[in-house]
């Protein structure tokens, strides 16, 4: 596993890993007598350092969201370990989770369903603070700070989620994740549901927060451009496995795995002539891969 850090990062991540995932398998039991469980993840190994962003990219159904959920304790782990800050949290119970909630947080993809529609913003943001035993006044103060940090007006406290646009809701979700000053935030496709210009603003916010607080991100996305922009290192998932892992530079400039190569050339660029060139490169690559596949097929 490569550990080289590119020159690209403003904050050089260093020190011990904050999160280490070893040989992780996730299996969902299926309904029905003696059915074999569905294996969503196979032999996952990743690690994240303080202040570092690991981008996780893959197509739908590749298991990238499941990996995030497994780390958060929302998916059934059947094998392997998840170590967070030196503690094994593979099978953490609710009580351990409560103390973990201080350091490990989440931002979900869909800003429309990740906020309870019947709670006011202030209550949503105060929820994790209350769990950690903060007094309502202290929580109120912190909520104001948070709203300021994500660039929302402080009168948002008494408003309901439906009064906000998608981008603003995603800021609220980010504020909720930030409430306890966590050390790692699992970001599950946090910008996929947003418009292009809103996506840019929210990505800026993520970068700014990392600069300010030194938080680490596990950044899940299907968009290689987004992952390249925000990550120090990138892991590529395909069919429930990590097929390639390295610095963002390596992965996006010189991908080794055939899927990553296809992915890189599949994303269209906003210029007709360069796109035409990229399209030709992609067709050439597909042709080469087809031939390779054909030549290896009889052997297996």
């Amino acid at each position, binding site marked *: 596993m490569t550990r080289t850090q590119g020159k690209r990062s403003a904050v050089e991540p260093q020190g011990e890993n904050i999160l280490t995932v070893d040989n992780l398998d996730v299996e969902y039991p299926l309904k029905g007598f003696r059915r074999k469980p569905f294996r969503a993840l196979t032999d996952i190994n990743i690690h994240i350092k303080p202040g570092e962003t690991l981008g996780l990219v893959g197509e739908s159904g590749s298991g990238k969201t499941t990996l995030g959920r497994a780390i958060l304790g929302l998916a059934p782990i059947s094998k392997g370990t998840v170590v967070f800050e030196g503690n094994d949290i593979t099978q953490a119970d609710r009580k351990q989770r409560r103390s973990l909630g201080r350091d490990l947080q989440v931002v979900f993809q869909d800003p429309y369903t990740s906020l309870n529609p019947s709670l*006011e913003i202030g209550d949503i943001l105060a929820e994790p603070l209350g769990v950690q035993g903060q007094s309502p006044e202290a929580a109120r103060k912190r909520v104001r700070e948070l709203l300021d940090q994500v660039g929302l007006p402080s009168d948002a406290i*008494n408003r309901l989620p439906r009064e906000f646009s998608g981008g603003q809701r995603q800021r609220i979700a980010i504020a909720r994740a930030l409430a306890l000053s966590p050390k790692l935030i699992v970001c599950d496709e946090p910008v996929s549901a947003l418009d*292009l*210009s809103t996506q840019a603003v929210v990505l800026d916010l993520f970068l700014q927060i990392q600069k300010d607080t030194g938080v680490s991100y596990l950044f899940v996305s299907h968009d290689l451009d987004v992952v390249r922009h925000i990550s120090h290192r990138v892991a590529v998932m395909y069919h429930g496995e990590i097929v390639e892992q390295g610095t963002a530079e390596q992965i996006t400039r010189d991908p080794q795995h055939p899927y990553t190569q296809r*992915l890189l050339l*599949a*994303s*269209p660029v*906003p*210029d007709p002539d360069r796109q035409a060139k990229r399209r030709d490169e992609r067709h050439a690559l597909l042709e080469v891969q087809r031939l390779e596949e054909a030549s290896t097929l009889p052997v297996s």
Partner: protein
Amino acid sequence: MSEIEVLADQSDVGQKGTVVRSHVIKKILKNPMGLIAVGILTLVVLLAILANVLAPFDPNFANIGKTLANPDSTNLLGTDSVGRDVWSRLVFGARTTLLSALLCAAVAVGIGLPAGLIAGYYAGKFDGVANWVVNILMALPGIIVLLTVRAAFGPSVWISMVAFGILLSPGYFRLTRTAVQSVRNELYVDAARVAGLSDASIIARHIFSVVRAPIIIQTAIVCGVAISIQSGLEFLGLGDPTVATWGVMLSEGFKNVYLNPTLLLWPALAIGLTIGALVLLGNAVRDALEDAEKIKPAKRGSVAALNSRTAPGRTQNEAVAAGTEHHLVKVSHLGVGYPQADGSVKKVVDDVSFHVDRGEVLGIVGESGSGKSQTAFSILGLLPEAARIVGGSIQFDGKYTVAPTDDSVSQSRLSEFRGKRISYIPQEPMSNLDPAFTIGHQLVTPMVRVLKISKSEAKKRALKLLDDVGIRFPEKTFNAYPHEVSGGMAQRVLIAGAISCEPDLIIADEPTTALDVTVQADVLDLIRDLQKSLNVGVILVTHNFGVVADLCDRVAVMQDGRMVEEGDVREILRNPQDPYTQKLLGSMLEGKEPMTMLVSAGASAGGADNEKEAGL
């Protein structure tokens, strides 16, 4: 931070915060039905509470010397067959009747609600067992159970209401369980789990709010049912004659119906009004919770007058402006709006003009809410019922589909084009295929209808089309159901359907947005190849400039319902004139230095670094 300004102007839009509950109560009171119901119930409740003050006699005090008397100043409503004061009994009866109805509802809620919450949230064994119990309870004949209870425990109002409450609890159980199941996997519940909330607080905070409203509605109705069942039992003489309730009074009145019919009238009136009010209240609460404001269908005249586009008795298509017949589609100054409750019209598309020629691909780019889909849908004539064309015209192949004075898309005029000459590729491939029919069936049926060919011929054609769109085993896909194919494959099938009737124009609404990037590239290849070989005009609605660069000849950029820029694709992408286009292109990640700010690019990079150093 510089984004604050960006946000500040967005946040002006929302209304001021209001607590939902007070909102609902206000809505109920605004509704005449709800107001009447609340009025009657308040009256009955006041009677029950103030019974001791309002009633001149004890409900069981009997004046043997004055039976079946007519109303007078001592006995306001007269007396019954043993000389008891009817008014006093009615007032005390209200107390007993209401309390017993509440007891019944409380028992039903007390059992059904927690059981439903637990079964819905945890599922598993408890759910299984609870469902069995519920099924048994629901299979029991209620009246027989109540008679049995009476035989075993004696004629007590309270015991029979507890028993009836148990019989009604499955209703609450099922209601709660279904509601909980629907939110159990919502992301905000996951977020609460990550925060470490205990199950009890998750249920109390996040899940209970979902079932609160239906429970209130159900309770109003259950109270009514309880009153009617209780009165029914007592009317049959199965109640406790020593307790004054409306049912007992009804029974008493019925016995003396020939001597003094009014004895029957008062309890019947009280029962009828109370039950009616409870049911009305339930309905009013439901109406108040259904958020959408009802918009009265705007009168044709008013909207037409508003836009001064009355079209009296026009049957003939007027000729389009000379010199524009050669355009495949020409949209001129199009405006689309939705009439609002207050009579105004909310415009979603305003003064949009463009044209598409044969063999040309036009991209319409914009963010959500920019009106790009509404524009495309008005060409297709697929706007929602409420939508109105408030300006401009659309012509297709030299004929108006929306003439300059029309206020809606003429379905009859468009139907000769739609499906035959104009076809559509939707955004969500899966939701646009009917899961109940095979893919083959869904391809063949329109061809038989539109092209008037035989079924076997249509099948042959469908197989060829599936082959054309790059499906490897056409025969297998033809016989498959939509759930058996992947999203990319489903989109290929829809593209096959779109070209099946040899259209001149294809309107593709975000055709690749729901697909993976690698699949998107394949589908774009397919659309490009087909467009070239069939020489059709394509209107491609998208938010992705990469897709535009890949397919389009010309591009129109839309913002807030207006078209801000239109031109050759190279011109727009390389040298955008409008600030909005520049902003959109500036938000693209391609070619940007990673880990740098996008919006405040360059300017704040140094400042941010300083901040970081200060912060660490």
